[in-house]
């Protein structure tokens, strides 16, 4: 993200403190439900926080824990993972596979020091534009409360020393 002013990394830079920090959130979403739900929020002209960057995958089943690690490594303040409701998966079961994976992986994240407040999971269907907008606002608010992702967290990329 090029909002240089909003980068916590930029604390090393001289002029960084001038601008207030704003959360940076990476969202991994499935193409058929949540991406379409976000489209619907758009066509409905629902206003929501501008802090989320969506990465589209065909299905939540495709979302590897490595994606989440990488996003944190790159300095995301939070990660959101969202897909189809149970029973709605375009691929019949990808979301069930994903749900089980997250059930384990989020425990590991929490245990190794990535606060559960930085990792969000949701089901948003193609019909839930309002839910999508509300979700983004809620997540953004909560991450704002939690503050910037600690630059010294072991998951976080640091300059080679």
């Amino acid at each position, binding site marked *: 993200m090029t909002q240089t002013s909003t980068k916590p990394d930029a604390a090393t830079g001289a002029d960084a403190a001038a601008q207030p920090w704003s959360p940076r959130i990476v969202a991994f979403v499935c193409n058929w439900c949540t991406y379409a739900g976000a489209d619907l929020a758009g066509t409905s002209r629902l206003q929501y926080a501008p802090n989320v960057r969506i990465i589209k995958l065909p299905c939540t089943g495709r979302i590897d824990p490595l994606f989440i690690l990488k996003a944190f490594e790159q300095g995301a303040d939070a990660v959101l993972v969202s897909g189809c409701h149970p029973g709605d998966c375009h691929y019949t079961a990808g979301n069930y596979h994903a749900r089980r994976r997250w*059930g384990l992986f989020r425990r590991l994240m929490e245990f190794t020091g990535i606060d559960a407040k930085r990792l969000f999971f949701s089901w948003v269907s193609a019909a839930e534009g309002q839910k999508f907008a509300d979700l983004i606002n809620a997540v953004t608010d909560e991450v704002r409360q939690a503050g910037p992702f600690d630059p010294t967290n072991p998951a976080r990329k640091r300059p*080679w020393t």
Partner: protein
Amino acid sequence: MDLAKLRQDAAALLADGRAGLVIGFRERAGACVPAFVTDADQADALVYDDTCIANLAAYLRKPEIRQRRPVALVARPHVMRSLILLKAEHQLQGDDVLVLAVGDDTYHGVLTLAEAERLLNETYADLATDAQVLAEIERLEQMSPEERARFWSEQFAKCTRCYACRAACPMCYCERCIVEKNVPQWISTAAAGHGNYAWNVIRAFHLAGRCIECGACEAACPQGIPLMLLNALLAREARDQFDARPGYDAEAEPVVGSWNKDDDEGFIR
């Protein structure tokens, strides 16, 4: 434990050709080290005691060992679970391996894999996680996320990326580990910072629902990183959330890679 019987069985297996190799333990400089016995005469060198922690099933993926199949293996209950799980994951055929089964102060004799599975379910069905490990997990869970991050930051900082943990683990049988994949490179190989975090976390996650808690990885770590905390945490979660009992059923579906309609989703908005 009847060590003499174990030696006798090992010798007999080699002598009548039922096994091409016996992997067990011998003593060297006061410590137990793996022994690879191909000759019946050498069977008397075999020893076994509580300090024999290495999981010998880890050797089965090596081509020079596989050539000598069927291989007989000195195996405690945890190691038998590894073998069952390797079979469930299609890394072993039923007749690739014979087990010289050792249990709590008992020697159970020579077992086929199917017999070992039965023994496990009848006699060793409740292998509990080490109490100290559980206590330490609970202690860490009481901490704030920041404190936990600091704890692991210090632990992972020690990692030299020697991958002894991986070599010691029978379930780390990938020929090209994800950490060695460079197109794209997901995990930095530099022995520092985020690369160490990603490696240790992904190593543990790739064992989620598969770790049988033998402790070989932690024992192998030259830096003393408490890897079993990560493994046992995921083992606990896999058990509590998905009834996972790895290594007790050679027909079981993998925990990650299967699903149930009623899996918990209380954490999903």
